[in-house]
């Protein structure tokens, strides 16, 4: 029985028409009609301004939008059929769209775009989030230039974020990745990033596409894979990261896609991170302060309540995951009133490491392990918000750095937990 192709015949016909390219910009979408038009127009402007001579294509992998998203992407095409008087382009720019099966899932979108890049022999690929409304044409240059002219393999973004945004990245994914894989990439789970065609093709060949990390959190898996294989990584400061708000974030989903994928990566790459390893450089081009301080209103009270409720409610689960020492500390914390509550760095790091070890040993269902971390993270988030409520940008950076150091210092704790000595 022939193997089913992930690319439709119609899409392949479009790829034939595009032919070999130097640059491919991928835009994964699902009902992003309110923002994607602005994003692809910025991408187009960036390609015309910074890479007018390169053969380029914009490819949209859509998860089944019903809001005209695909048409907005296609409208960015430049050809001799559609003359736009104010657009001066040396060559044709195809902007094509395909709908992948089984969506929406960002991993499937990435896989579709990787497959297209592989077929088109793209030298450099950039992925751009459809809701990156702060994007301007310079993003295209900042993401692609290091690949095309400096021979880098992977370009990760550095954003300027509000000090209370990206809490999961700042409290878990970034410091843990830095400590375990010894690579100080600020955004290892990127929404906007770029990679060489060869790195993309190697990733496409990985046997992950039937697994969970092939559907969600795939971008994190990608970055971690590049770190594991010691790819040449660089970071580019692109500016502010603002997203079009679509409603409250699903923290369980976010935890699955970030911590879940990170834990899975640790499990799959134990030999790589356990062996003596030189730090993997990830220099940052054009980096500027990454913390912004605009006024923000957050409901910390609810975070505290959900932490306390979670510690109590999930006690049977924690008994399987956590050491008695850590578990006891958490139970004690759950009784501390909001005004004096603080989830200390060291306890948070040990908690996370014990969760990672439990995931490795699959003491219970792995998805349950990841979900159980959610209320505990809320406690840590409460502490982060409290500690940094009146902090300057420098102080926020200093606090994040302190947490990173704790993750680093507690690395032996993870190893002990990993092989069952805890």
């Amino acid at each position, binding site marked *: 029985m022939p193997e089913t192709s992930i690319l439709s015949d119609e899409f392949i*016909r*479009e790829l*034939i*028409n595009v*032919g*070999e390219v130097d640059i491919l910009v991928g835009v994964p979408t699902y009902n992003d009609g309110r923002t994607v038009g602005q994003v692809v127009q910025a991408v187009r402007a960036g390609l015309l301004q910074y890479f*007018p*001579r390169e*053969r380029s294509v914009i490819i949209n992998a859509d998860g089944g939008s019903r809001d005209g998203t695909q048409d907005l992407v296609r409208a960015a095409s430049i*050809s*001799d*059929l559609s*003359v736009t008087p104010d657009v*001066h*382009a*040396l*060559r*044709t720019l*195809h902007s094509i769209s395909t709908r992948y099966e089984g969506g929406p899932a960002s991993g499937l979108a990435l896989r579709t775009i990787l497959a297209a890049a592989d077929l088109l022999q793209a030298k450099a690929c950039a992925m751009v989030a459809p809701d990156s409304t702060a994007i301007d044409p310079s993003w295209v240059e900042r993401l692609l230039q290091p690949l095309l002219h400096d021979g880098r393999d992977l370009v990760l973004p550095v954003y300027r974020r509000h000090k209370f945004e990206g809490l999961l990245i700042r409290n878990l994914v970034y410091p843990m990745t830095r400590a375990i894989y010894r690579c100080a990439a600020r955004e290892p789970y990127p929404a906007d990033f770029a990679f060489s065609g060869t790195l993309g093709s190697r990733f496409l060949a990985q046997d992950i596409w039937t697994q969970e990390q092939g559907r969600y959190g795939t971008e994190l898996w990608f970055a971690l894979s590049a770190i594991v294989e010691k790819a040449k990584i660089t970071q580019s400061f692109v500016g502010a990261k603002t997203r079009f708000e679509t409603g409250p974030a699903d923290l369980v989903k976010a935890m699955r896609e970030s911590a879940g994928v990170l834990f899975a990566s640790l499990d799959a790459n134990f030999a790589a991170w356990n062996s003596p390893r030189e730090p993997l450089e990830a220099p940052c081009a054009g980096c500027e302060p990454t913390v912004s301080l605009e006024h923000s209103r957050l409901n910390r009270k609810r975070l505290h309540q959900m932490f306390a409720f979670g510690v109590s409610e999930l006690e049977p689960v924690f008994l399987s995951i956590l050491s008695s020492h850590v578990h006891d500390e958490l139970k004690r914390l759950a009784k501390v009133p909001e005004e004096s509550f603080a989830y200390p760095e060291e306890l948070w790091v040990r908690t996370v490491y014990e969760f990672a070890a439990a995931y490795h040993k699959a003491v219970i269902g792995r998805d349950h392990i990841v979900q159980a971390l959610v209320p505990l993270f809320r406690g840590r988030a409460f502490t982060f918000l409290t500690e940094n409520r009146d902090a300057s940008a420098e102080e926020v950076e200093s606090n994040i750095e302190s947490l990173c150091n704790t993750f680093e210092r507690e690395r032996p704790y993870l190893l002990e937990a990993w092989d069952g000595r805890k």
Partner: protein
Amino acid sequence: MAAQDGLWYKDAIIYQVHVRAFYDSTGDGNGDFRGLAQRLDYLQDLGINAIWLMPFFPSPLRDDGYDISDYRSVNPTYGSLDDFKSFLDAAHQRGIRVIIEMVLNHTSDQHPWFQESRSSRDNPRRNWYVWSDTDTKYKGTRIIFLDTELSNWAWDPVSKQYYWHRFFSHQPDLNYDNPQVREEMWDVMRFWLNMGADGFRLDAVPYLVEREGTNCENLPETHSVIKQLRERLDKEFPGRMLLAEANQWPADLLPYFGNGDEFHMAFHFPLMPRMFMGVKLEDRKPITEILKQTPTIPEPCQWCLFLRNHDELTLEMVTDMERDYMYDEYAKEKTQRLNLGIRRRLAPLLDNDRRKMELMNGMLMSLPGTPIIYYGDEIGMGDNVNLGDRNGVRTPMQWNGGWNGGFSNADPETLYAPLLLNPVYGFQATNVASQRRFDHSLLSWMKLLIRVRKSSAVLSRGSIEFLYPANHRVLAYLRKLGNETVLVVNNLSSKAQAVELDLKPYRGNILIEMFGRNIFPRIGDLPYLLTLGPYQFYWFRLRRI
């Protein structure tokens, strides 16, 4: 030659040659008319049916003959008027028409007219040129030879006034506001027409008249001069032809056709660099865009298309972005650049890639217009940028691998220009004799191309309709004339391509490939799928059988 068909220029395949560069019959190191006549069999065998002769008049040769000092004679170096007449008759006997160059805009400063004009301010010929007490008139006029000229005015120390020149300062512009000048220049043209010349390539026509407050190009007064010449030509010499050299945008060129009462033909300058651009970008966009901007011209008129000529590959009619791209891709060496252009021949421009040369010549012969082949390009001659100005693309024709490449019996030191000697383009590697030996040589292929082009009037006189397949690396168009339709498909890419063509209106036709006459599948309801190798092109005749 009988003017049995007044539209002969539409079916012409023009060969551009400089008498000096083609064949030396006297052994003095310069080509001449007797030599050119001796090589007419070669040109007839090539298949061309018109020759465009670059200036052959007496001249100090400070601009390769475009600085004429006597309009009614032949430069003695190239022979005599009788030699010219003999050549003309011999060409006509072979069915080859002869178009001669006429430099209307300016003369040499050595021309007796100018010598008289400058001799004193009250000389009767003073007003034959454009004089001024200041060099500030016509400020809005661009300088064409940017590399050598700082102003369009030059000081004459003899009569102590400035004179106007759009090109080199030794080429003063004639004053076309003077009726005597207009009368005299028509008389010059009549002189050559009476001898049998079939047409004129009129040099630098946009610049004939000057007016304050304008850019002194394409002025209505200039068009009046041309209309008057055309009227006299049609009246006294029907069937003869005027070809305009006007390096302008398509919309600005349209007036040069008038209502069919100015030029018969005009060069399509903006198309030429875009053909090179399209092949380098592997994208049809530059070509289709400029042809979309090209206006419809009166029915008796025709565009003249060329790939290379005796000048630099001009980049005046491109945007700054396009010019930078062309320089970076086609003139990486600074020495290859001249003015706003690139002084290189076709083969070196195309990396001596036979596939690209075939593709470019294929487009030259299939896009709407009369094609011009620059001498030597049919065998892939190279250039020599070390010769200065544009002389590097004007070296002697390479006939064989023997003494002086078969061009001349003179001592090599006495040749008007040195032959190419390098191992790729030198005369021992690239010459007519060696390419005549093989059916697959570039020369043999060019003969085939010309033969196929001439096999159907649709390619010379037909309309064009672009197909715009989704694959932008493929340039496809239909040429139509009456009931005949030819499909042309060009792969501009260095890689093989698949393309689907929407040929539904021609459902039921079969395609006949015009070079091999092989049959391709019948057009059905589905898009017609073709695959093309790198730089490959097809010409198909559509037939309903």
